[in-house]
């Protein structure tokens, strides 16, 4: 594939992660890795543990066993469980399966919240809006405008998010995640509920983000066409276990994966 940054070394490594809610074992001994600049998909039937995996990665859920290793700023860090605030400051950003935007705020304000961790001024300085606070906001606004331009949402910049159609809200969520300038972007079903054209747009944006910013992408998606087309490697989960891992071609040919999706006579 012809792309700006060739796929590099490992940036994230998940080792033997198990997560249970009471008696429900959401994840069992799951291990996989993510390489720098790649698009890595996590697939699986409903209830396979995909979203749980993503939630473990950015510290929403805390696994009972296993470790997560993350390379950030050139150094490896090892976690038993991730803290979501720390995950964000280490350069992990995400979007949600059910849109989690501030419905009453404009697109611009929503995307600005993505810059939250990068703001250094105190509450008081921001309230008065002089000197440093002013300079800082202008700087952040510029970064946000770059993202708005990149995702082609200029025309809805001042529109409250609640008034937008679903496909655009998804794009705004991506914009907010991108505003944080992540090194690792987690996308939870970015194309669910979209029509074909919206899906094509979203695929193009995911590829563009990966290509232009070199962002590593981990995505969950149900649309197999999308997954097979845009991802470099795929992890397959079923009942909380990893049953397949490899390139789209390898996964497609994997008997365990076919059985999980089509069902098999026991």
């Amino acid at each position, binding site marked *: 594939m012809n792309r700006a940054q060739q796929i590099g070394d490992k940036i994230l490594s998940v080792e033997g992660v198990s997560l249970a809610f009471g008696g429900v074992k959401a994840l069992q001994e799951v291990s996989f890795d993510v390489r720098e600049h790649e698009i890595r998909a996590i697939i699986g039937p409903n209830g396979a543990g995909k979203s749980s995996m993503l939630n473990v990665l950015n510290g929403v859920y805390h696994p009972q066993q296993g470790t997560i290793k993350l390379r950030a700023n050139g150094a490896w860090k090892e976690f038993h469980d991730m803290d979501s605030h720390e995950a964000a400051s280490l350069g992990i950003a995400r979007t949600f399966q059910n849109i989690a935007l501030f419905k009453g705020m404009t697109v611009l304000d929503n995307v600005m919240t993505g810059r939250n961790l990068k703001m250094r001024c105190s509450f008081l300085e921001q309230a008065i809006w002089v000197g440093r606070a002013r300079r800082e906001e202008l700087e952040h606004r510029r970064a946000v405008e770059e993202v708005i331009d990149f995702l082609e949402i200029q025309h809805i910049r001042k529109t409250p998010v609640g008034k937008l159609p679903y496909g655009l809200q998804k794009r705004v969520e991506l914009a907010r995640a991108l505003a944080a300038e992540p090194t690792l972007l987690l996308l939870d079903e970015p194309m669910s509920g979209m029509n074909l054209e919206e899906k094509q747009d979203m695929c193009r944006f995911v590829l563009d983000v990966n290509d*232009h910013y070199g962002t590593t992408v981990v995505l969950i998606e149900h649309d197999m066409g999308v997954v097979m087309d845009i991802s470099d490697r795929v992890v397959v989960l079923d009942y909380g276990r990893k049953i397949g891992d490899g390139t789209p071609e390898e996964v497609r040919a994997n008997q365990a994966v076919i059985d999980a999706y089509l069902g098999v006579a026991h």
Partner: protein
Amino acid sequence: MSIDIGTCDTFPKLLVHHARVRGALPAIREKDLGIWQTWTWQQFADEVRALACGLAAQGFKRGDHLALVGDNRPRIYAAMCAAQCLGGIPVPMYQDAAAAEMAFPIQNAEIAYAVAEDQEQVDKLLEILPQCPTLKHIYYDEPRGMRHYAQAQLASYDTLLELGRETRARDPEFLEVEIAKGSGGDTAAMFFTSGTTGTPKGVVLTHHALIDRAKVAADLEGLGERDVVLAYLPPAWIGQNVFSYAQPFVTGYCICCPESAETVMTDMREIGPTYYFAPPRVLEALLTQVSIRMEDASSLKRRLYKAFMGIAQRVGGALLDGKPVGIADRLLYRLGDLLVYGPLRNVLGMSRVRVAYTAGEAIGPDLFRFYRSIGINLKQLYGSTETSVFVCIQPDGQVKADTVGPAVPGVELKFTPQRELLIRSPGLFKEYYKNAQATAEAKDHEGWFHTGDAGYFDPDGHLKIIDRVKDVGKLVDGTLFAPKYLENKLKFFSYIKEAVAFGDGRDQVCAFINFDFEAVANWAEKRGIAYTGYTDLASREAVLSLVRECIERVNADLAEEPEIANSQIRRFLILHKELDADDGELTRTRKVRRAFIADRYRALLDALYGGKDSVHVEMQVKYEDGRTGMVAADLAIRDAKVYSPDAAKRAA
């Protein structure tokens, strides 16, 4: 007020002039990353100079063509001027054209240099590269997505600019000499006509033609350096190019480039242009948006809007024309302006508009009057690519809904016996590029341009365009018969969807009508008329009367125009089915195929002219799934009242 442009006879000389006289005033603005970025005349001139030097260093010579592929962007206009500095000829191309459509102009003019806006346009140019071996240099403005392109032809606009700055630093005199070499008779630009029939033709326009027309029109409207224009239509279209290149270069006004096609409405509100151009379809879309938003408004707002729009319709146009209006109405209008019209103009982004033009196709009188009634000085003009746009303009205070105004200074008009409009003007094109035959057909040896449009002068000397000359016929008594003109007049009524007028070579005019099912069904429901479908409604006496009223109003209009007063519609019938492209009655672009319909409905036509008052029809129709079926109906034929020219005058 007249603008002083000294002895500048080319666009590059005008640029130098403005950079000297009003260097610090804004020349062009672009909204980029949410902020309006301004280039002053001085900055713009510097950019053009550097770019021209860069092009020269890349081998661009006098007489070479430069293709411009992109939306309204300062850099596209800078490239346009840069080519002209070197005596080259810019060829703007439609940015939304498919790749295959771009091949012809490039082959035709053997274009070697192109400036493209972004990756999308570059992709199109690369796609046609095999058919266009002459194309050797493609410069792109927006670098996003271009990182992996390794084609030898490609270079970024920025590298070209950098190269230009270096060469200019070494030899600063070179460009000034090149600019001085240019003269008004040189070719300034070439515009390819869309060419819906046959291959496109490259219209060659000189600096003199464009500058002369731009200046005459600007003087007429008193345009000056303080005016602002929003450039939002394709720059490859002569209209946009004149408003956003020729006229600002003559008057020194500022043009603004919107952020993207979707943001035009917002950008227009932010900029508040003073000079505005829109084809009727844009004005119609704006009005539809307003109507929809009004329907969603609270009942108080709706009632206010309705009441004050009534007043505006009654006196708004007259006030704009400076005609006498009673004191009570003046006060009411003033109040309406405060409560409704002012805010409405603001929403439309037209608060500061002094002069607005519409052209390109016939505009519905209601649509036209709506804008005028809320205080927007909307006027019509007539022109084409071959005439550097300005042929006729409606002067302030003499605006009519159905004419395009008198000839602007410098233009001579006359008609052939077939009623074809001929034009002689300093703004006429030089030739069709490499197409001597087409040039000879369009421009005769005395310099008259044959427009192909048929029309006449109304009693005030305003030009009225009625139809294409090939469609115009004559009644037996010699009266002009312009079917499209009559049909358009009928279609401006919301109840009438299609009309087909007949009369060429006959003693009177008759018409087939299709009513607008949605509008008439709605109308019928309000009156408690039960119906089963279109065919049923078509036979109702109430519907026939409704259509007759529309026709009679058109007839009353026609009676006031002596030239065609006799082509009033005497008899009509409502067709039992809607005309359909699947049956071959309409073209795919929904134009009526008059001859085909006359042939298919021969029996109906004979009944119309045979004086019968009803006719039985049975015919085969094709359904969308390909099946066929028979439809039978009895159609009523009705007479419509006609007016004598004198009676019309008395009524008026």
